[in-house]
């Protein structure tokens, strides 16, 4: 048993050198090498290469890390207090606007006022988040959709924006105006983020066409379709936002 009748392949010998074999197999290879001097010589040479490469490159580990590298990790965090302040400002503006409208509005509800502002605030708050932008990531897409559909009491979907270069990052549950709301986050190859906010705007909501708002660097395209209010938020040109909105509209209607 200890003698291997057939020669050990070169692949196995490389794996032996690199410590990729389990112990039992390594012991077999070792025994075989003891009787095959030519192969043993090659194994020795490969090991020497590994050691030489380590000797060449390991000193880098002991060098002081340049400050610019650690700083590049901190930079996004530094802007966070500013972003948080912006988000708070948004909420105050929203509250004031809501209060001002409250007094003189006529009975037919101005449908979209609260929900698209909430969507904008949610975007400002979470799209800036580096570590925890979503509660449930795109890895668990079906769970995400089921969970949020259940909470909103509507059949939700995650539209595919890949044709426009945006991949789903994930989503989260948020408090909406009249109950829960859902936020789905997307991101392009450069890391630019886009959020789709879905809420139930209430029984007296009227369907609307796409409407566009531009505030504080964030752009919102929103619409009401049947019993759901949609708001698409991102730092995109209006035309491009509209392209994305069409995909979202189609995803919920076909």
């Amino acid at each position: 048993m200890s003698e291997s009748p057939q020669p050990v392949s070169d692949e196995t010998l490389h794996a032996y050198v690199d410590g990729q074999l389990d112990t039992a197999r390594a012991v077999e290879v070792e025994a075989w090498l003891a009787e095959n001097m030519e192969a043993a010589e090659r194994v020795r040479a490969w090991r020497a290469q590994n050691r030489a490469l380590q000797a060449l490159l390991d000193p880098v580990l002991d060098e002081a890390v340049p400050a610019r590298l650690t700083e590049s990790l901190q930079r996004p965090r530094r802007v966070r207090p500013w972003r948080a302040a912006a988000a708070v400002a948004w909420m105050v503006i929203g509250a004031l606007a809501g209060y001002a409208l409250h007094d003189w509005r006529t009975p037919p509800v101005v449908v979209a006022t609260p929900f698209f502002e909430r969507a904008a605030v949610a975007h400002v708050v979470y799209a800036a988040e580096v570590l925890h932008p979503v509660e449930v990531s795109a890895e668990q897409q079906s769970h995400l959709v089921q969970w949020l559909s259940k909470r909103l009491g509507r059949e939700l979907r995650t539209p595919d924006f890949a044709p426009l270069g945006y991949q789903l990052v994930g989503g989260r549950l948020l408090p909406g105006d009249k109950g829960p709301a859902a936020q789905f986050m997307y991101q392009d190859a450069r890391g630019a983020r886009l959020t789709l906010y879905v809420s139930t705007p209430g029984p007296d909501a009227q369907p609307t066409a796409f409407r566009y708002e531009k505030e504080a660097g964030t752009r919102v395209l929103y619409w009401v379709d049947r019993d759901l209010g949609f708001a698409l938020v991102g730092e995109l040109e209006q035309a491009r936002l509209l392209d994305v909105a069409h995909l979202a509209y189609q995803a919920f209607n076909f």
Partner: protein
Amino acid sequence: MDSHPFEEHIPRLRRYARALLRYVTRADDLVQDTLERALTKYALFRRGTDLRAWLFTIMHNFHINQIRTASYRAVTVEYDDAEMTPEQTNDPTALRDLAIALEQLAPEHREVLVLVGVEQLTYGEAASVLGVPIGTVMSRLSRARERLATVLSGEAAPYLRRVK
């Protein structure tokens, strides 16, 4: 301020970058590009998988793109001792020869030698970093070792960079 989860991996990212690009500044530029890209993609990182291998994957992709751009090629053909690390210029002859030999290898050979031999990734991890099947890692490794030995023995013509 608490440290970022990427921070502990910086020394090894720098070591790998230095194997890919001998010039310290360029190697650190590659590390910085990698970290910045990783920050924007961190939401896509699957918890429970190896963060280091994930960072190496991003670095590999960045490096491959660099190799494909003409501006990068134009710079690498220059050979400027002044910009090399002090360690490398003061190296004993054998290590200096090795550094030069490593630079003469094809990028894919250099990568596999260092990922397996220095970074000690498993063949499976190396395959995922390089985006190739495990069998390709093994055959590349075999050819890379043969090639390195030939270059070190002084019998080989320098590797010519391919224009893809």
